[in-house]
């Protein structure tokens, strides 16, 4: 996490630390919907290394795998997802 004024950094979640949740491999994209909801896409994480979408708690750094792109039970398989966006972003924004 970067301070918006100074650029100083603090580690929010170490994807190599299993105490914080499922391990990551190559996190390549991040979107923060609000201060409480951060999503990270990893192109090689997940049960079959086909990629995974993580939800990260910014307060604790704890991670959960929201969508495992190797898991057919969650839908079509993926292969190295590289980017993400949140569809409701502007809908929520415009309601404010």
């Amino acid at each position, binding site marked *: 996490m970067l301070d*918006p004024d100074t650029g100083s950094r603090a580690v929010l979640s170490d994807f190599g630390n299993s105490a914080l949740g499922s391990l990551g491999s190559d996190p390549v994209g991040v979107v923060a919907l609000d201060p409480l909801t951060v999503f990270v896409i990893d192109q090689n994480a997940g049960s079959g290394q086909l990629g995974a979408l993580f939800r990260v708690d910014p307060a604790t750094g704890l991670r959960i795998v929201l969508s495992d*792109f190797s898991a057919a039970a969650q839908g*079509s398989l993926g292969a190295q997802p590289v980017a993400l966006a949140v569809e409701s972003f502007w809908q929520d924004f415009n309601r404010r």
Partner: protein
Amino acid sequence: MLFAVSAATGARTVLSDFGNAASGALGDSPIAVAIATNGEVLVLTDRGGTGDRGVLFRINATTGMRTALSDFGNAAQGVVGPSTSGLHVSAAGEILALDSDGGTDGRGELYRVHPVTGMRTVLSDLGNAAAGPIGVRPEDLTMDAAGRGLIVDLDIGTTARGAVSRVDLATGARVLFSDFGLPAQGALGLTPIGITVVRDSDAIFANGFE
């Protein structure tokens, strides 16, 4: 492939298959995605289009139908870009796109893309040292609460560990904002590749491979 993922369950559905011509112009190597203020999905591809230089698509969020908005190989739409990489839409609907190999000496270039015509305008040439630190591998961008661009570069900064540059979008001037090789600014980073700004708190998140 563009997936829609349920934020509640993680279930995935294919929204748009870039290899399916029935959904519109074909795409190749989608690399960035953003949501336009009208609800459309914007996807930037690294390949495809004229000269295989990449295309910015508008995609209907319900049907998945694609329309090419800006062909980065089409000089009639502005400066030709060799390798697209990042995409951002501002609250005002402004579309910013990044080309990691464009500009002077292929150091990268930041564009504004007109949301209707797809015309590209250069905002900052990352190879122009007179405008600030030059780029090496710029990969992603966002905009801060003050309307300044933030560009994350994998290989600039102290010992080439990566950094975030801040860009004045009116002048193109850049300053090094967070140097991931500089301990005085906090924990060291390495090859940061993604960046986002939290809408309500202005906090900035960046992530990287290591």
